[in-house]
């Protein structure tokens, strides 16, 4: 078993990170960025360039305001040298290549990165850690991170109690078909609500971009979440269930009972969907940390939109694994079963270490969280 001693050693390693990432090239590459006050596309590109700087530590961004004499003259000189039309801003020069205007990270942003690639500048691929040696970052890939964070999030017992309530009520029915339909409806609705929640976080971070204060807040959230999970690992050794919100629980149970006993199946389905929506929305608060941290990392990867959502679907599938397991076992054996606490405990330990590592990287080495 992973001892606490080892965990603290790893923490110390991260705190004392002294060696720089290995880079493909040691020389700096200059990016000349010409912008103007009041230009919205320039502001967009500024945010993009900030993230680029984090991703490629060896680039140097030189900004010039074109409404100032010096900036304007330099832009004209560059235009003549490159034989380019410099009537519009933003205007970006990388070596002997230029990019005029800025539409989005996915279009013009990609053009700028391609220009960097031609200069053989690559994001760091390996990192040297004391004692542990060189670690390949690509091995700690985004799918693996998605899997681990989603699994940890799934063991959060917040919304699980409603599922246990429902299973208990369904097991009292003689109609197996009704049992399956109502249970599946609840699980699918819960997954959908969570998907909406993750999408909201994702779009918020895409909108905000990689701003320094966002990075600090998300880093701190990761540290707090990690500490909470480690505390759970240390304190709750016997996997006891916390007794909270008795009144709310009773209310939900009474509603659930009334809904599942409705004679018309369609009415029962509508009731279950509404209740699953409400319960999951209320319980979202207790798992806000992990989705926020995960979606922030996701936005750092600059993927096409459809791939972002594909990752969210993957996250939901892993997140729902324990619910699906409990539901299918109960429906096939006609007995309500619980998951032994040792699984939740290990997930708390691994998840706690993971979240603290992410938090520290987010604060001190965010470029290492830019997968892909």
């Amino acid at each position, binding site marked *: 078993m992973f001892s606490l001693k080892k965990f603290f050693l790893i923490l110390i390693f991260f705190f004392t990170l002294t060696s720089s990432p290995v880079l493909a090239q040691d020389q700096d590459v200059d990016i000349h960025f010409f912008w103007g006050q009041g230009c919205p596309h320039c502001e967009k590109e500024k945010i993009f360039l900030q993230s680029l700087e984090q991703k490629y530590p060896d680039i140097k961004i030189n900004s010039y305001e074109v409404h100032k004499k010096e900036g304007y003259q330099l832009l004209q000189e560059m235009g003549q040298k490159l034989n380019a039309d410099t009537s519009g801003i933003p205007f970006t020069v990388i070596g002997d290549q230029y990019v005029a205007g800025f539409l989005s990270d996915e279009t013009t942003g990609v053009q700028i990165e391609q220009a960097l690639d031609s200069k053989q500048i690559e994001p760091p691929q390996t990192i040297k850690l004391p004692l542990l040696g060189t670690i390949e970052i690509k091995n700690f890939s985004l799918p693996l991170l998605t899997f681990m964070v989603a699994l940890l999030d799934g063991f959060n*017992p917040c919304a*699980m*109690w*409603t599922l*246990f*309530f429902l299973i*208990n009520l369904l097991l009292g029915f003689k109609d197996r078909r009704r049992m399956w339909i109502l249970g599946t409806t609840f699980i699918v609705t819960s997954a959908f609500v969570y998907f909406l929640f993750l999408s909201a976080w994702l779009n918020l971070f895409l909108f905000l971009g990689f701003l320094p204060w966002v990075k600090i807040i998300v880093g701190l959230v990761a540290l707090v979440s990690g500490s909470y999970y480690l505390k759970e690992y240390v304190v*709750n*050794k*016997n*996997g*006891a*269930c*916390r*007794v*909270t919100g*008795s009144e709310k*629980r*009773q209310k939900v*149970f009474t509603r659930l009972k009334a809904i599942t006993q409705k004679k018309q199946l369609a009415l029962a389905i509508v009731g279950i969907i509404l209740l699953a929506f409400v319960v999951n929305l209320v319980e979202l608060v207790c798992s806000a940390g992990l989705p926020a941290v995960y979606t922030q990392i996701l936005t750092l990867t600059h993927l096409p939109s459809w791939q972002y959502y594909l990752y969210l679907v993957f996250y939901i599938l892993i997140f729902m694994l324990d619910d699906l397991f409990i539901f299918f076992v109960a429906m096939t054996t006609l007995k*309500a*079963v*619980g*998951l*032994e*606490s040792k699984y939740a405990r290990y997930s708390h330990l691994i998840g706690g270490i993971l979240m603290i590592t992410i938090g520290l990287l987010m604060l001190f080495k965010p470029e290492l969280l830019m997968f892909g």
Partner: protein
Amino acid sequence: MKVIKIGAIWCSACLVMKPRWQQIEKENTWLQAQYLDFDQDQDKIKKYNLTQDSLPVFVFLDKKGQEFLRLDGEIPIKELVKTINKHKDK
């Protein structure tokens, strides 16, 4: 000896403990056991004065009805059997 088992239908650890107790009760027919639901049997539970905010709770009573041991959370079946055998004559 009598064991009062306090649990709830929404509590995963209580569900994990259920088959463990079923096995113990089957193998030790002399053992008296009573299950109380945290949400349904509050009146009966009150007298055991639950101070902790966690479930399940197992209250062990001697022949005179006096509590001599209290356990909570998920307990390995081996540990439960050992405890029961140790206090068998109480």
